[in-house]
Every structure is written in C-alpha cells, then in structure tokens.
C-alpha cells in the first residue's frame, strides 16, 4: 500500500474529523475560529500535493495520482481556502453561523479530490455524490430564510436526477466496453452512445449547461452568498477537470460527440446571455452568466485537443477567481440590512463605496474578457484552438455570444457609477478575510492576465 499518494486526502480527512469533534463540544460560539482552522487545513492539504510522488496508483488500482489531478487538487484547495476566508463575517452578521459550515466545505472538497484521482467510474461516482450531497446541505444552511430551503430542494431534486443519469451512463459504458476503468478505449454501438449521452448529461447538469440549467438561478439566489461563490467556482473547476479527462478517454471516440457537445454549448451560450438581460437581481444575473460560461467551456470540449483543453482549464481557473471576487463583493454588500441585490439597490453605490464598486467593476470587466484581465487569455486560447481545429462556425458564434454578454455586465457597472443614489442602507465594514479574498483574486486575475505563462505553460506541459 502506497500511503504517500494519499497525503492530501489524509490531511483533509483528519482535519474534517478534528473540526467535527471540536464543533460538537465547543459549539457555534467559536465559529470564526473553526473557519480559520478549516482554511488552514485546506491550505496545508493543497500544499501537501508537493510531497506526493507521481504518477502512481494505489488502493488496488482504484486511486491514482498524476500531475493532472494534483494540479486540480492544488487549484481547488486555493479557491476553497479563499471562499472560507470570505465567508465567516457574512454568516456572523446574518446570524446564521452554523458550526457545520466550516467542515461541509471541506467535505465537498474531499469528494472532488477523490472524484478527480480515480480512473474508475464507480469511484468517480462516489466522490461526485459525496460532494453533491454536501453542497445540497450547504445551500440550505441559511437560518430563517425560506428561499434558501427552496433553492436547496430544487438543487437536490435536479442534482439527484443528474447523479442517477451518471450511474446509468456508467452502466451502459460498462455494458459496451466491459470495464469501468478509464483508458483510451474505442467504444461503439448503441450502448456506448447511450452511455456517453447520459454521462454527458449528468456532467452538463453539474456545470449548469443549457437544457439542464434549471436549478442554477434558484440555487444561486437562495444560497447564502459565500456559498454561492463556492457553488459557482469549486464544483465548476473540479467537474471541468473530470469532463476534460472523460472527453479525452471516453467521449471523443463517439463519432457524433462534436455535434452533441457543440449543440449544448451553443444553446447554453445564447440562452444564458439573453436571459441574463431579463434579470432584475444581480445575483441571478451572475447565475445566468455562469450558464453562458458553461457554454463557452463546453465549446472547448468539442475536440480532444491538448491545446484546447489546456486553455479550457486555464480559463476555468481564472473564471473561478473572478466569479469568486464578484460574489464576495455581493456578500459584503448583503451584510447591510434589507439589501436585496436588486438593480435599484445598486444605484449610485460608487459614491458610498468607491473601492467595493471598483472591485465589482473590475471583476465584471474581467468576466467580459477585457484584455489586461486573465479571462481574455482563456477566451483567446479557446478561440485559437477552435480555429486550429477548423470549427469556424463555433468560433464565430463564440465571439458573437461574448459580445452579447458585454451588455449586461456593463449594465451593472452603469447602475453603480452613473445613477444617483435612491435608498440608503447604512454603512458596512469589510472584514479581514473578505479583503484578503478580494486582494488575492484580483491580483491573481491581473497577474495571470499579464503573465499567463505562469499557469498556461505549466498546463500545456501536463501529460494527460
């Protein structure tokens, strides 16, 4: 047994058990301490990937580490730590400081870590399910808030449908290839096509691509805002790493894969972007923007191309950073009483909070894909990859959708900067954790935008 390969998971599980015991006996009074401890545990766990020797396979072949999934674990850990840091003040102000919040984020992360480091579809499913169930609970953990329960229930029902599709797809793939272990296999026949269709639908549901997006706006709106920033970032990064792996190993051997994923991508790009214009709440607008981004990301999966997939992973990571930043600003503003995220609430807040408004504007500009910010590089990468793969129509539609999306992001900025204030909500303080999160995510976006090579070259060199 090779225990070295499991170091990050061991650190994380030990930390979860520790937090669990501490929370039982110290209760919610020490919520802030638990969250800080959780962030430290996540950071230790994500930096302990440096101690792992790879590539290696352990636990009877059910668990394997490679540069690919270690990178994923590292990036996921960083984002989770940032979410944890930004969360504590919000929950304390909203009088919703459940002690469980500290370790439920960690359990979700553990599920994703297991999901990413297995080559066996059954174990992938177990990890995915561990993460999903913890997320359903996280969405509902908002004291005395009915919408949060409603969002959690919708997420639960649709998410369960998604996981059952995943199992059924696994069964069909097993029926056609005779193994659950992923390796470069050539499947064929109806069973294989059905299996791929079902697996793809399940993953598309988890990343909220178009026909499976119904839970997204409600769950995002209902969840407490730090949890929304978690939902919009960590699962996305994790599932795109899995999606990329499955595309390379399994999906791309289906001849009609291109059309399958391409149609989903086009539909969710345009659906998300057009519906975002109709939203009255900025939080819902960001949810629709996340649907549109699911479209951009899935575009990159049309071809099993290394260039395209590396740019996709880069794009997902910087997208996660900027979404995290935007939702953190929203959660700071939501600490005010009676704040509803409605557009009218945003009128003229630049006068009152120039720094916060500029941060939100910065993250929204990043989401549009304005050059000094890193998302531009991600978009450029996907565009170039599509051109290189001779997918001309897809690349043109991609650019059109990006241009359409600029309108609603700019609308928020216009409301913040060019309108007179109508309502007054009182002052709000930015906590240390929130300012750290804002600083790190904005610095990360700028740094990766100006020197994309830091991460992108590394991703290009990854063996898949």
């Amino acid at each position, binding site marked *: 047994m090779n225990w070295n390969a499991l170091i990050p998971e061991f650190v994380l599980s030990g930390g979860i*058990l520790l937090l*669990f*015991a501490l929370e*039982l*006996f110290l209760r919610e009074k020490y919520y802030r301490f638990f969250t800080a401890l959780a962030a430290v545990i996540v950071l230790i766990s994500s930096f302990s990937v440096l101690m792992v020797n790879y590539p290696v396979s352990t636990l009877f072949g059910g668990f394997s580490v490679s540069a690919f999934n270690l990178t994923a674990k590292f990036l996921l850990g960083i984002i989770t730590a940032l979410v944890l840091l930004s969360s504590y003040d919000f929950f304390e102000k909203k009088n919703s400081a459940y002690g469980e919040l500290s370790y439920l984020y960690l359990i979700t992360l553990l599920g994703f870590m297991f999901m990413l480091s297995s080559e066996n579809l059954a174990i992938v499913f177990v990890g995915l399910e561990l993460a999903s169930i913890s997320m359903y609970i996280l969405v509902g953990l908002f004291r*005395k*808030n*009915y919408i949060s*329960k409603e969002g959690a229930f919708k997420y639960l029902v649709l998410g369960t449908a998604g996981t059952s599709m995943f199992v059924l797809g696994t069964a069909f793939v097993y029926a056609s290839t005779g193994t659950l272990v992923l390796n470069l296999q050539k499947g064929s026949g109806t069973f294989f096509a059905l299996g791929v269709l079902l697996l793809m639908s399940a993953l598309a549901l988890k990343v909220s691509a178009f026909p499976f997006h119904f839970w997204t706006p409600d769950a995002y709106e209902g969840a407490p805002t730090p949890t929304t920033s978690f939902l919009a970032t960590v699962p996305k990064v994790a599932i795109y790493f899995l999606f990329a792996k499955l595309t390379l190993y399994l999906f791309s051997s289906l001849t009609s894969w291109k059309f399958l994923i391409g149609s989903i991508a086009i539909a969710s790009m345009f659906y998300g972007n057009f519906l975002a214009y109709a939203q009255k709440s900025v939080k819902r607008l960001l949810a629709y923007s996340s649907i549109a981004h699911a479209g951009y990301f899935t575009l990159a999966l049309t071809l099993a191309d290394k260039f395209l997939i590396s740019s996709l992973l880069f794009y997902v990571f910087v997208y996660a950073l900027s979404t995290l930043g935007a939702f953190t600003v929203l959660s700071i503003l939501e600490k005010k009483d009676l704040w509803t995220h409605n557009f009218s609430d945003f009128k003229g807040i630049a006068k009152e909070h120039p720094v916060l408004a500029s941060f939100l504007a910065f993250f929204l500009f990043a989401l549009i894909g304005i050059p000094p910010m890193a998302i531009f590089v991600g978009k450029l990468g996907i565009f170039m990859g599509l051109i290189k793969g001779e997918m001309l129509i897809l690349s043109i539609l991609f650019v059109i959708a990006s241009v359409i999306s600029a309108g609603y992001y700019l609308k928020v900025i216009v409301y913040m900067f060019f309108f007179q204030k109508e309502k007054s909500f009182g002052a709000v303080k930015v906590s240390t954790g929130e300012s750290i999160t804002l600083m790190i995510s904005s610095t990360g976006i700028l740094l990766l935008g100006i020197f994309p090579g830091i991460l992108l070259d590394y991703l290009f060199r990854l063996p898949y």
Partner: protein
Amino acid sequence: MEYIGFLMFFAVMIGIALVMISLNWLFGPKTPQEYEDYPYECGVPLYDKCAQTTFHQGYYLLGLLLLLFDIEAAFLFPWTVVYRWLGIFGFIEMFLFILILTYGLLYAWKKGALNWQFEREEF
C-alpha cells in the same frame, strides 16, 4: 367432504370471537375516555389530528438514524466472516469505519436528534 373438519373449525373460531367481543360490549364499562379514539403513534402527540396524513419531521430523522446504524451492522457481518484473512489491515479499516459512524451518533446526540419531545420547528 374431507374438509368438513376444517369448515367446522372455522365456524367455531368465528363463533368464539363473536361471543368474546359481544360479551365485552355487554359487560364492559361505558365511561367515555378522552383519548379513546386518538390514533396511537409511538405514544407521542400527533402532528396532524389523523395518523394517515402528515407526520412530524422527527420521524424522518429517526428513520434516517435507524438506516445509518442498520447499515453499519450490515457491514459488520461480512467483515467478521473474512476477518481471519484480512488481519490487522481489516481490523484498522473497521476501526476507522466504526469511528466515523460513532461520530455520526455523537453528532445526532449533541444536536438533539434523539430528543423525543419535539418543539415546533422553524425554517
């Protein structure tokens, strides 16, 4: 004709049952009791005034706990069968498994899921 004994047994059985019930009805005390027609549900006041519709959430909670510890027991049986071949590895694995489940019990206990006296829940 060979089943006539069976039929007679059936008739006698029904007769005795009817006699018992009517005797009870004839000689039994007739004082009305407040909770006479109240549906019995584990000795706890009902959530709805009828046992067929809405149950208190606490039942689902207890059902979930029962499932948790039932499954724990179900996993212990195959482990005992192959314990000799698993050796110290199996022992430690099972120890960890039961430790985590004990955590579940502790959690339920501390959070008051085992309290049978329900308060009214709130969202």
